[in-house]
């Protein structure tokens, strides 16, 4: 008989038995500069050239400004506190005067250039609200993915955060986002740029380089100031550190008893898209160090939570419906995500030497790919590797309705997970609120399947041991 699902088990259903909130980290706050130096020593071992030394020098000066930024940074002790922090950052962006503001839609946008240009910037990826979706539907009709409808809907609704930007940039990932950008042009100036699909082609990389140069030139015009190579190099180093740090956060979840919930990780990760990196770095460093010092004790017998991976389309900022069902209602744990608002964007490092814009072209094309990129097998391989690295028990393959990248390719992804012996539940998702009950039932049944599989495996192993 499979174990009782956590939410029906009186010994595990109480909030107290959910993943325990971590104890607060020590209040002593190290200077951000020393923190940055600690982290830098990790990356700088890989950098040897004089050019890198110069870039590190630029980063040091950046670190000095980080010290100033950190003075205003809040003392964040728990992931849940990120929400208020981000909200404050969004408000600050809206209210900021005398600075140009640029938004972007996709993870293939080199943030290093935005920062080097001195513009305030943020990703537009709010979603999960049926009202915002409906507002976007005024332009798209219904047969469009709800995320892109939400991108448009934010403008149509007059969301002050969306209205705050002087320009919206989008590297052409999928046709849907391209169309959405064209509609956004009705509200705010936009700039679309080509993103090559063939990540293995040298010619495509050179072409991407030329598109990134166009992006840089456009930013120069927007910001009204030059963007120097040194400034870009400094930003590459800062963002590399931040991505590495966020990857470390994610990898805490490789532990048998992960100290972070899936939701907590997303709470931290979303700050990457809203907060100035020099402000975010010291905050994340403090928090990460605290988590790292927690004992990695295995779960108590019978308390092991089912470990799940969420793969597929974007889980937008605000789209937490399935995550809440999985973690809060059914007691399982999302230990890794392979989508472009989860851990995936933090698995790449930009080369810190050489022509910085060429480095951005190579680095961003080398990032763990969206399924839109070719060869598709790279995206599937990456997803499979994450599933193995994080030792998941099953995969929730979630694609937004009308998301071709993940909807049409679901067969290939699922086949690979099955090859690894992983059960998969494919869910076609949107931001409506009417199918919550159905989702709950399906996910609950899926967890039962995983438990049954684990029980059978344990029984088989026990019998095998006795036979031996």
């Amino acid at each position, binding site marked *: 008989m499979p174990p009782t699902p956590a939410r029906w088990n009186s010994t595990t259903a109480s909030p107290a038995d959910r993943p325990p909130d971590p104890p607060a980290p020590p209040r002593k706050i190290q200077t951000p500069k020393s923190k940055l130096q600690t982290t830098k020593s990790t990356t700088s071992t890989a950098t040897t050239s004089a050019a890198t030394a110069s870039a590190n020098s630029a980063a040091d000066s950046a670190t000095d400004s980080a010290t100033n930024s950190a003075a205003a940074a809040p003392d964040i002790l728990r992931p849940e506190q990120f929400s208020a922090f981000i909200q404050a950052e969004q408000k600050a962006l809206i209210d900021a005067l005398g600075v140009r503001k640029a938004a972007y839609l996709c993870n293939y946008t080199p943030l290093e250039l935005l920062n080097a240009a001195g513009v305030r910037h943020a990703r537009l990826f709010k979603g999960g609200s049926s009202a915002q979706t409906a507002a976007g539907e005024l332009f798209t009709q219904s*047969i469009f993915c709800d995320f892109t409808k939400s991108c448009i809907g934010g403008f149509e609704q007059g969301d002050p955060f969306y209205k705050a930007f002087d320009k919206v940039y989008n590297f052409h990932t999928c046709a*849907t986002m391209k169309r959405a950008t064209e509609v956004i042009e009705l509200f705010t100036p936009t700039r679309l740029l080509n993103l*090559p699909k063939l990540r293995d082609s040298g010619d495509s990389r050179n*072409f991407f380089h*030329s598109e990134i140069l166009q992006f840089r030139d456009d930013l120069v015009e927007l910001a009204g100031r030059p963007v120097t190579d040194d400034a870009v190099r400094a930003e590459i180093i800062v963002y590399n550190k931040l991505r590495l740090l966020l990857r470390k956060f994610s990898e805490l979840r490789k532990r048998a008893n992960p100290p972070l919930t899936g939701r907590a990780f997303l709470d931290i990760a979303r700050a990457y898209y809203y907060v100035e990196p020099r402000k975010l770095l010291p905050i994340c460093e403090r928090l990460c160090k605290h988590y790292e010092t927690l004992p990695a004790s295995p779960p108590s017998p019978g308390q092991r939570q089912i470990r799940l991976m969420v793969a597929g389309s974007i889980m937008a900022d605000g789209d937490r419906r399935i995550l809440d069902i999985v973690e809060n209602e059914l007691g399982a744990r999302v230990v890794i995500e392979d989508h472009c608002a989860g851990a995936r964007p933090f698995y790449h490092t930009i080369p810190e030497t050489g022509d910085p814009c060429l480095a951005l072209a190579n680095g961003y094309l080398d990032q763990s790919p969206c399924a839109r990129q*070719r060869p598709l097998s790279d995206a599937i391989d990456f997803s499979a590797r994450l599933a193995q690295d994080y030792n998941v028990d099953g995969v929730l393959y979630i694609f937004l309705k*009308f998301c071709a990248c993940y*909807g049409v390719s679901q067969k290939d992804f699922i086949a690979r997970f099955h090859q690894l012996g992983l059960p998969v539940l494919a869910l076609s998702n949107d931001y409506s609120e009417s199918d919550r009950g159905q989702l709950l039932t399906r996910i609950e049944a899926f967890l039962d399947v995983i438990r049954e599989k684990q029980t059978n495996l344990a029984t088989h192993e026990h019998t095998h041991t006795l036979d031996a």
Partner: protein
Amino acid sequence: MNTPTPLMPDSAATAATAAATDNAAAIATAARGIRVDALDYEPGVTRHGSRHQPNIYDAKVENPFSQAIVELGELARSWNLERIEHLVVHEGRRAVWGGAAWDSPLLRATDTIPASIMELWRKESHRSERIAEDTFHIPSEFCSMIKTMIGRWHTKRDDPIKRILAFSSGCEPMSMVIEHARNIGYEVYTLEGVTAFKVGEGLENRAKFLAAELRKASVWLQGKPVDEDRLSAEIRLKNAALKKVARILDLRLKRPFDIGSIEVMWLLGGSSGYFGNPGKYFEILDRLLAELEEAAKTPETRPSLPLILAGGPPGGLSFFQLLEKADAVLVGFVLLGTSLYREDMPPLESLAHYLFESQLRGELGEATGASALLRRRGIEALIEKTGARGLISSAITACPYASLVQQLERNHFRKQGFPIVALEHTVHNDPTTEEQTMKIKAFLEQLSESF
């Protein structure tokens, strides 16, 4: 134009008559004296009793005005997948899937027959769609076009055409089913995606890159780079065809009933690959031009209802019948490219610039990354030029991209006070649905009353 007597060859007329007798599927449009015979069609959905219909390229249209049109229909019917496969197997010709649109001169210059993607749903489309959902797990919400593509590729995976030329600027659903095709054994060559999003934004650099991509593609097609002189000649040939078709459409404004809207679709459809027979295609164009130049001296006096069709024809033959019954004539088509290839630059760059111009005009559809916002400018120009009184904006059901364009156009033209009807359709050769019929009829009635 000839006198209005049926000019169908005796043999064809006999066959058509026999078919009409034997086959309850014969469709008559008495109002125009034009008969459409449903020969060689695949059984499809039955509606209103017994109606089936062929693909518009398989239809027989009895045109009482011009023998050239009759021969154009024969040419269109003769150029199909079976014919291309025959050429590959028995004459050693080379063929690939794709390359039958903006890039068609490159294909011709490399002695490669482009098998149009449209051939994938010309037959067996319903079966193909089922295969896509059952075998490839394509979610039901996606469009019939991509489903029939992969379904048909699946059933034809052991047939002679095993190579696909893909273009990355196309929509993601299409790109993803091409990956499925790759997995079942097709050799896929992907042209890197390059899109011109706005006029003047770095086009020269993008054109040079795309030209280099096309040169690489030519090596894949024929084992060596394309002969640029030959490519230039092919570009000139296509420009000549485009000019003649454009002239025919202009003359047709004065004689709207002489060439039916289906026949115009054939003309447009043949302007890229000439139905495999450029000599015959050009001969037909010249005869039509001569006939129309003469006929246009006496403009048509019977009133017609001029319309513009943006997108593919919704509902196939039935759609055209509905129009003809109401004396409505399609005088403007926003489907294929309307610009000419530039002849003042290296030919590969000329192809790139043609693509960019088309994208910026919102032409060639989502398969090439056309602009959603800019298509309406082309429509407005067409309205100005043709005096059209209404716009039929057509999209394939469940195509998010076309639906967005449609919605933008609906919002825009309603504000302008210009009549528009938005229709959806599948790629199947099904008669118009009740909803489509009702919407078309209501739209035409509304326009007729105001007329």
